[in-house]
C-alpha cells in the first residue's frame, strides 16, 4: 500500500523523457534509468526486493526496446493517445484531421453511418446465429472476427477510419499472424476498439484472442 505501482507509468515516464525525444536521448535516458535501479545504486538499493527490482528493470528494458524501434514506437504513441493516457501531439492531431477530411466526412459521421447499417443486420436471424456460433467458444481467432465483420458487411477500411489502427495491424489480427502483432499492452486496446465496432464484449474478445495466441506458443506455457 505504501508504494506506488511502477507499471502505472508509461514508457516515457519510466525513462523521464518527453514524447518527442530523439533516439540519442532515449539511449542516454535508458542508461541513466539502468544505473538508477541497479542493485548497487545508492538511492535505490535498500528500497526494493530482488523481485521488485527485476520487475522494474524488465519494464525499463521494454520501454527502451519499444521506443528505439520506429514502428513499435509509433504504435505505442498511438495507443497512448487512443486510450486517453496522453493528449495527441499537434502533428498527430493534424494528420488525423486531414485524413478524416480526405475520407467521406468525420470519424463521428463514419461511426453513425456504420451503426445504422449494423442495426439492420443485427436483427437478421442469420447474423444472430453466426454470432452464437463464433463467440460462444472460449477461444477466439482472427478468422472468427473477420468472418463476423464480413457477415456484417463492414469493410476493413471502415474499421481503420474509426479506430485509426493501421491496416497492416488489422490484417495481422484477422489472419492470426501473431509475429506481426504489436506488444500485448496495445494489442489489447486495439482488440477492444475492434470489438466495440462489432458490438462484441471487448473483454471477452481480448481473453479469447489471447488464449489463441497462448495455444500457438505451447513452449511458452
Amino acid at each position, binding site marked *: *500500500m*505504501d508504494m*506506488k505501482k*511502477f507499471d502505472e507509468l508509461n514508457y516515457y515516464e519510466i525513462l523521464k523523457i518527453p514524447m518527442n525525444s530523439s533516439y540519442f536521448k532515449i539511449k542516454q535516458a535508458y542508461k541513466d534509468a539502468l544505473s538508477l535501479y541497479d542493485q548497487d545504486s*545508492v*538511492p535505490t*538499493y*535498500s*528500497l526494493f526486493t530482488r523481485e521488485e527490482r527485476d520487475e522494474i528493470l524488465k519494464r525499463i528494458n521494454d520501454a527502451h526496446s519499444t521506443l528505439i524501434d520506429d514502428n513499435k514506437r509509433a504504435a505505442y504513441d498511438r495507443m497512448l493517445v487512443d486510450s486517453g493516457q496522453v493528449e495527441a501531439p499537434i502533428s498527430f492531431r493534424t494528420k488525423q484531421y486531414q485524413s478524416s477530411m480526405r475520407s467521406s466526412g468525420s470519424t463521428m459521421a463514419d461511426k453513425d453511418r456504420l451503426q445504422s447499417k449494423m442495426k439492420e443486420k443485427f436483427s437478421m436471424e442469420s447474423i444472430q446465429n453466426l454470432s452464437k456460433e463464433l463467440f460462444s467458444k472460449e477461444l477466439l481467432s482472427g478468422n472468427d472476427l473477420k468472418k463476423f465483420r464480413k457477415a456484417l458487411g463492414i469493410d476493413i477500411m471502415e474499421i481503420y477510419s474509426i479506430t485509426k489502427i493501421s491496416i497492416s495491424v488489422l490484417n495481422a489480427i484477422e489472419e492470426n499472424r501473431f509475429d506481426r502483432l504489436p506488444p500485448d499492452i496495445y494489442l489489447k486496446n486495439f482488440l477492444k476498439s475492434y470489438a466495440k465496432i462489432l458490438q462484441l464484449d471487448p473483454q471477452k474478445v481480448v481473453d479469447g484472442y489471447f488464449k489463441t495466441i497462448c495455444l500457438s506458443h505451447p513452449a511458452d506455457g
Partner: protein
Amino acid sequence: MAKIYPIGGGKGGVGKSFITASLGALIAKWGKKVVIIDLDLGASNLHTLLGMQSPNIGLNSFLDKTVQDLESAAVSTSIPNLFLISSSHCYMEIANLFYAHKVKIIEAIKKLPFDYVFLDLGPGTNFNMLDFFLTSEEGILICTPEPTSIENSFRFIKTIYYRKLKQMIKKHIFNSLQKDFSEDAVKPGTTPSDIIEIALKHDPEKEGHLRSQLSKFKFKFIFNQFRNNLDATLGNQFETICNRHFYSFFEFLGYVSFDGRIQDAIFSKTLYVHRYPHTQSAADLKNIAAKIT
C-alpha cells in the same frame, strides 16, 4: 498562522539539531519571528548549539502549568527574533511522554503566534517522534549520503505513512472497519500494517481516500555532510525515486557541504553560520533557508 517545519530523519547524528538551529538563525536574521522547539525528548541540546546555558523555563514549564501557554515557554536567544522552547529541564522520563501531554503539546504548537516554527525531533521512529512529525504536512527529512542513512529515510517515510493511516482509520472509519475485521479471521501477530492492508482490501473506495490523504504530504529533504567526491546527482535521483514510488510529493532542498569547522563551532558553542558566514556550507544553508521561506 505559523509555518511549521518538523525536522526529522531516521538516523541519529545526521545533523538535525545543527540544521534546525542554522535555518532558524538565518530566517530570524531576515526579520521573521522564529521559534525552534527541542523535541528530542530526553536528549535535548539545541540550547548548546545556540551557545546558551540550559534555560530555566521550557516545555516543562508548559506541562506543569508554571507558564500559561506554550508561547510563554519560549526564551529569547542571542539572535534577535529567534526564540527557543527547550526540553532540557523536563522530567527524566520525558522520553516516554504521556499521551495527554503529547496531544497538549501538538495542539499548542499549532497555535503558536510566530512566522516559523521548527521542531527538532529525535532519531528513530517511536510514536512520539512520528506524531510530532505529523503536526505539519511539510516535514523536512535530514539524511547523509551514506547508504545506511538513505535506507533509514525510506523506513522513516513508510513508518510515517503507517502512522498517518492508523490515525485516519481511528478517526473516521474505525467503526465500520471493526466489522470487517471480525469477519476476517485476523490472526494473532498481525502487525498494524497488515491491518491497514486488510482494511484497504475490503474497501477500495477508502483506499482512494487514504491515498489522497498521503498525497497531501510535501516531504522536503536535505543531504547533510556532503563531500565533493560524491555523485552530485544523488539528491535529484532520490527525489525522482521518492516521487515515483511513494504517494506524496518530495522536494530536494539541497546539499549542505561537509566542513570540519562545523564541529569546531559546536565545540566552541558558537553558531556556525555566524562564525563562518562566507563558507560553502553557510551558503548551502542560506539557499535552503531561502527555499522554505
